[in-house]
């Protein structure tokens, strides 16, 4: 185990970058609005991981405090977003993003 290089903050940041990228690509390629929401959650988690990593690296507590506010925003976003999805489903019996083109020019 001593031969393994120690884990530096860069490792965590790279992992967060990969998580953010997967979330972003998933948001672009999927059509189900529920799955798109989950991809947004992945991106928010990547940002949280970055904040906590910098809190550790810089020895600064405010990075962890920011994560609280991110969690609150995520919870509010999920509550409103899922309510919107339910309202859309009641109206159209479908939650595919391609079919939601009523506002298209």
């Amino acid at each position, binding site marked *: 185990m001593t031969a393994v290089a120690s884990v530096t903050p860069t490792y965590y940041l790279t992992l967060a970058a990969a998580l953010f990228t997967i979330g972003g690509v998933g948001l*672009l390629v999927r059509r189900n609005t529920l799955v798109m929401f989950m991809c947004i*959650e992945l991106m928010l988690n990547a940002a949280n991981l970055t904040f906590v990593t910098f809190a550790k690296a810089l020895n600064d507590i405010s990075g962890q405090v920011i994560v609280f506010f991110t969690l609150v925003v995520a919870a509010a976003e999920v509550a409103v977003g899922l309510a919107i999805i*339910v309202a859309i489903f009641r109206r159209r019996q479908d939650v595919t993003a391609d079919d939601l083109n009523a506002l298209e020019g």
Partner: protein
Amino acid sequence: MEALIFYACAVAVIAGALGVVLARNPVHSALFLLLTLVSVAVLFLQLDAALVAAIQVVVYASAIVVLFVFVITLLGVDKSESLEEPSLFQRPAAIALGALLFLQIVFLAGHHWVTGSHSARGALGTARSGNVQTLAKSLFTDFVWAFEITAVLLVIAVVGGVALARRSGQRSGSGAGPGSES
């Protein structure tokens, strides 16, 4: 040991994230999301953020994922969907742009000039004693204004959610405002 935990959790995080994107069934996506969230919570523990890890499990892994699964079952959209892409260039373009984004973030993360200055708000507590007191002190002094605004945001979200989900007259589809016409 730390490296071992990190690599195990990193594999779980990436596998869960890929599962969210690639699963055909939304319920499977939600469960993969749960895997990712719990693994990120373990990484938070590795980074001396015990309280944040606990809140991650409580808020994200229980509340939000349960809400997702609840909506999936409520809507009955748990049937598999095909992953066929109707437009030709969107998927390769998304993957190429995602790879570019990844390389940019990794480039930034690997260069120490982005890490900036050192502590301005007080140091982390030691891992043994936990950092709940340090975090709470910062939250209720330096960030108290943002904390108050958070309360307003949550009230707005609750009112908006109720106004949207309420089964009102079928014509008023805007859902604007918590009006009492019912």
